[in-house]
């Protein structure tokens, strides 16, 4: 809250110099009733999968800021032990301040410091199939959603965007724990035409290290996305070297998604994830398939009836030799809303 007030105060201060202040607020909520069959039992539960609130501020000619808060469960997945028990707590997801300068009619340069978004996660976060769950790269801890660092964005109209982030590499959880900095870069090239909608090609690279052991944490990725009034689709592939403190582990995360309105306010969406992790002597791989029928409650808000299947490869299971032990089938009734407005 103090950070939010500081953001407003700074933005307000800039507004004295330049009588322009624009703000854009955003809230995302995803909640589900889940029936899960796994480990030989079936259980039901309710989950708040995602709750985020935040906004961007542009103050004066150059000032920009962003703040996002998110709710997370404070306990680990097998435990009830967290902050005040297994409670939902609010934490910062992003908090950054900086400046923006225009060069010519289309080129803008933006620099920000703080808890800045991971550029890859941020570049794909708006895709409609994300309603089916967090990105595979985030879920598998391949990419932290934010990092303490500096961000530089170069944008040429809507067709080219380059984002470079230099940070600690430890995400939001830790301060810097080794001498190396982590550098991430994302390039997005988009092409728009009324007949085909928007096609975008994204490339991603990260050179980094985590933890006191300076475990390497390198990533390369690419994505192709399509967005149109008739639907949206995309594919994303990220390769990782060094995963979850295992320096010799190599990961491959691939996601494909499709979202198609059948009628004006209803449609179907599907997503397939493939995650493989090669530790040198052993490997883990699994498929996650998701499909849902949705009905639009309002622009940006949906109710979904979804089915998920999470299945490990027989020869590469998290518990070697017992692939089915971690398999799960879920049926979800989910509401998902993402609202954005400018007062």
């Amino acid at each position, binding site marked *: 809250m103090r950070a939010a007030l500081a953001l407003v105060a700074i933005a307000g201060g800039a507004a004295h110099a330049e009588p322009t202040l624009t703000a854009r607020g955003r809230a995302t909520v995803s909640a589900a009733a889940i029936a899960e069959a796994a480990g030989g039992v079936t259980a039901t539960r309710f989950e708040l999968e995602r709750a985020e609130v935040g906004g961007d501020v542009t103050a004066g000619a150059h000032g920009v800021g962003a703040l996002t808060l998110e709710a997370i469960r404070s306990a680990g*997945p*097998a435990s009830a032990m967290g902050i005040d028990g297994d409670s939902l707590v609010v934490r910062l997801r992003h908090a950054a301040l900086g400046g923006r300068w225009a060069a010519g009619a289309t080129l803008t340069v933006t620099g920000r410091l703080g808890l800045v978004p991971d550029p890859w996660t941020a570049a794909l976060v708006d895709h409609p199939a994300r309603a089916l769950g967090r990105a595979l790269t985030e879920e598998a801890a391949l990419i932290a959603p934010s990092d303490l660092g500096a961000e530089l964005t170069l944008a040429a109209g809507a067709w080219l965007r380059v984002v470079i982030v230099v940070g600690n590499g430890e995400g939001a959880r830790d301060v810097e*724990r080794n001498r190396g900095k982590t550098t991430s870069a994302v390039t997005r090239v988009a092409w728009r035409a009324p007949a085909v909608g928007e096609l975008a090609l994204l490339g991603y690279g990260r050179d980094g290290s985590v933890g006191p052991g300076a475990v390497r944490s390198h990533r390369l990725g690419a994505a192709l996305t399509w967005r149109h009034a008739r639907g949206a689709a995309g594919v994303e592939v990220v390769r990782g070297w060094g995963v979850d403190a295992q320096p010799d582990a190599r990961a491959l995360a691939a996601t494909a998604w499709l979202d198609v309105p059948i009628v004006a306010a209803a449609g179907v969406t599907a997503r397939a994830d493939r995650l493989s992790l090669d530790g040198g*002597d052993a490997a883990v791989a699994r498929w996650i398939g998701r499909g849902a029928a949705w009905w639009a409650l309002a622009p940006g808000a949906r109710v979904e009836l979804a089915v998920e299947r999470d299945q490990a490869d027989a020869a590469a299971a998290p518990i070697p030799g*017992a692939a089915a*032990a971690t398999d799960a089938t879920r049926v979800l009734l989910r509401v998902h809303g993402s609202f954005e407005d400018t007062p």
Partner: protein
Amino acid sequence: MRTRHALVLGFVGACSAAAVDDRPAFVIDALTRDNQRWLDRDPAAVAAKYRVMAARRFDFLRGSAGLYWRDVTAAGAGARPSPFAAADGAWLWIVGDPHLENLGTRRRADGAVYVDWNDYDAATRGPWWLDGRRLALGLALAADDAGLPALASRLIDVAAHAYAGELVRLADGGPIALERGGAVIADLCARAATAGDAGARLADYTRLDAAGRRGMYYGDVVPPAADGTWIDTTVAVTAAERPDVDTAIATWRRTALVPAGALLGASRRLGAGVASYPAPRYYALLAGASDRLDDDLLIELKEAVAPAGMPSAPAAVALGLAEGDRTVVAERALAASPDDDVLLGGATVGPRSYRVRSRSGYERGVDLDDLAGDAAGLEELAAVAGRALARAHGRAPTVDGTPAAAVIAPRLRGQADALTATWQRDATDDAARVSADHAAFVDALARDPLLGGAP
């Protein structure tokens, strides 16, 4: 532009080249993560824990269970399918860290003193065959550390046959038997009975004042080592700690099986354990049922933390318990005689969770230093450990409530030799890896006593 090309080439090179010290980096990072909460709170205690782990390879094993579980699951360095692996045995109650020094004496309500697992800090639901593999690893290291490396294979053979035989016996309806026989076990039980009858823990950790009232003792029960590592010392509970301790005791009273008397005093115990060396551990003196001084009760509150590195269970079978409660539920599920300690309970106060148990003198742990060069003694302990692990696995309930022996036994019937071969193969590789890790750990510790994890 040239700089940019160099950066790109450098990045590609970094991605493709394997670091020469990958494994030590992994070990350092895993140990730092697993000790993070204590590094933040009490880095000196973590430094002392690391010194203890460096001094003896078996203590390194004791302090690095999280490393083992990371190694044998997912894409870990020791992950490989076991012929005994099966999905229906993946989420049974396991001890989590079954090694010889986690065996100790307990006293049943009828006064019988016997040996069983005495530490359920890492107990959770997981694959039973990997619990057995951890026991085999501990046996291999115990033989080596005892100066009897050639004995490792024999110890594993004895333990595997004892495990398989006991599990099948239980599945066939055999009763739960208590471990009281054998020279080593009988001696341990006799010493525990003598100490318990004499109220040894009360004598160690409390004193009578001039007015004849019992109060806590603050000082060295065993003096610290020359390097300052605590061995057995008690200090006063600080004013900052006191509200948590009082609240934890009040909360625990609702979970113990019997009511206990008024709180007469509390101290903080320093120097116990290896994995939990930095964990806050308190002793509390409670008034007994009568005005006599010899029936006062001593309980121990120890912070419980989530077992590190364990495979993630699907939400449908995840425990979802506070950590103190998890150890209590685990002990009642896994112990041969689960209600022996009527004061066993849990308490959670804010972000800390405690396991509470009685301290009387009847609890006495196995110390491998007592068995240096004693092949017969180690063999006896290996058999006891195998049977104790089988009893724990076999009597604990599955997710649907039936005893797990019915799930495990069909895989072991007639397969004791195959189990032995599997444990021996795995233990050989695991012990080599632990030995290398220990050497790298000692090397890293020489450069930084906190492995770079200082807050």
